[in-house]
């Protein structure tokens, strides 16, 4: 006599709404990411600069400590727009490193073993799949740049000396910096995420993912520099999205007077072209793989 009925029983519980279904994609991608030691290490390294800058801000706000150690206080640069832009620029290598590690398998892993068909055969639209994967990288890049720069900005504002008009001045003079931080980080995160998604959808082998990214980024940078050297027009450097991004930072933080810059209109065209190219490649690959099943 059977002690346990092992015949098929259908699930009869309730299913949740579309947002909860979509959340499963980034949730499991994050779970997979944090299970990798390299990701944790890189992310931790990406937080070291934040700690150093926090110490620096503390010293700026407590200059009597420096005076006690007879350290010249006038050599310390203030926490101005350049301070925050420089912080974000230094974070970029960590973003690229995490892009190589996390981005390589994000789409390619699904394509390599035919899992893409499983996603799109579930009640998940292709847009939801795209945004699920997009959200993973985008949020990691924003955590490394915007969240940390924003935290620094907040700390700088809150620890400013009480007995000086510094806090008010800072807020009045520097409030637009937060907008610049947000805009600059958003553009960086979106551009880098789109590049990762497109490259990952195009190249199934993780080894060649990094090579392809480097060839695209550095290749266009070199072409831009060569054209600039040949034609002498700074605007031709806009062919490189990286050059365009760097110059965008200077424009965003109102530091464009520091050196010769690409025209802002061309910067936005360059970024838009980069995003369009990535979107077209991603869509083309997705359609192709879904249609043929692998």
């Amino acid at each position: 006599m059977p002690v346990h009925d092992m015949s098929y029983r259908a699930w009869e519980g309730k299913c949740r709404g579309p947002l909860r279904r979509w959340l499963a994609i980034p949730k499991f991608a994050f779970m997979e990411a944090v299970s990798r030691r390299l990701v944790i290490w890189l992310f931790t390294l990406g937080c070291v600069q934040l700690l150093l800058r926090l110490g620096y801000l503390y010293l700026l706000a407590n200059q009597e400590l420096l005076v006690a150690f007879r350290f010249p206080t006038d050599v310390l640069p203030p926490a101005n727009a350049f301070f925050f832009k420089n912080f974000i620029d230094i974070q970029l290598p960590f973003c690229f490193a995490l892009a190589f590690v996390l981005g390589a398998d994000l789409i390619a892993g699904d394509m390599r073993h035919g899992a893409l068909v499983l996603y799109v055969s579930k009640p998940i639209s292709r847009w939801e799949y795209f945004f699920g994967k997009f959200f993973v990288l985008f949020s990691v890049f924003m955590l490394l740049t915007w969240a940390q720069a924003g935290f620094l900005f907040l700390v700088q504002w809150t620890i400013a000396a009480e007995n000086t008009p510094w806090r008010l001045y800072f807020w009045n003079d520097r409030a637009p910096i937060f907008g610049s931080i947000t805009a600059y980080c958003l553009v960086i995160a979106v551009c880098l995420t789109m590049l990762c998604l497109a490259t990952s959808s195009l190249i199934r082998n993780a080894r060649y993912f990094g090579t392809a990214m480097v060839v695209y980024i550095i290749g266009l940078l070199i072409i831009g520099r060569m054209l600039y050297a040949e034609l002498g027009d700074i605007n031709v450097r806009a062919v490189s999205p990286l050059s365009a991004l760097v110059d965008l930072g200077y424009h965003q933080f109102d530091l464009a007077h520091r050196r010769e810059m690409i025209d802002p209109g061309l910067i936005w065209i360059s970024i838009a072209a980069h995003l369009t190219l990535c979107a077209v490649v991603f869509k083309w690959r997705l359609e192709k793989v879904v249609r043929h099943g692998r």
Partner: protein
Amino acid sequence: MLLELENLTVRYGKQKVLDQVSIALESKALGLLGPNGAGKSTLIRALLGLVRHESGSARIEGLDIQRQGKRIRELIGYMPEHESYLAGMTVVRFLRFMGEMCGLAPRAAMERAHEVLFYVGLGEVRYRKIEGFSYGMQQKVRLAQTLIHGPRILILDEPTNGLDPTARDEMLGLIRDMIQNSGSKVIISSHLLRDIEACCHEVMVLKRGRVVASGNIEAMKQTEENLYEIRVKGDLDGFLAELGRIGCGCRADDREGLEVTLADGLTPRRIFEAADRLGVQIRHFYAKKDTLEDIFLKVLEDELPAEPKLVREGRADAGP
């Protein structure tokens, strides 16, 4: 109605993969048959909304594939033909993920993942990573992810492809059990006739993107009403001559076996009367049915008919 297709046309570039397919079928277990490249997988992909159709319309359980794709995918569990898994995940985690994507709450998804894995016979290996599995085990994982949210319709694309005989029997056993013990309807695509025959009630045969036959399998088998298998003891040559004289077509397949085709208007009684006249003993008399293989080969040998050959007799829910 399980499936309603109306002039459904799907094109890959210049090639028409499905050409004006029109059919309406109600079945608990439908088999999609056809040689490689007939359009079975494309039809499934079109039903799931994975490929866009050029013209026509299709409905599953009354839902339009163009406008209600997401709702359809909520009802459907799809088992792909090829390798489909996420590398680096344990089976139970993979299934939990699939469950959550179907809308199950995390805890419910985990419980259901364990339940389904035990059902398909992978309970003992549920904490192993899928990439270490044999092909047969991976096939079971694909079946398990199909069942995770208890779909009302299961679409299984070549479920026994590449399996050894034991694994194939196990897979067919699971499919038969699902058909019998759940309210789910099953659509199985296969080029293996015995699999379809073992599991399905109705069949739809595709050839070069068109439906060339469809209907209840049992009813289709009974289309050759005048063919009989007979084994006799006695004067075989005389009996053959006598049958020829009354207008029967005969073919001796071995020393005592005959295949007799009755002419129109004759009844089997005439065969017994002829035997009685010659003193021949009839030791076996069987109204021969076509096997699914016979039907399949016959349909594929024919040129494409103008209209699909529909066989609507017999009970729709008659089991194999």
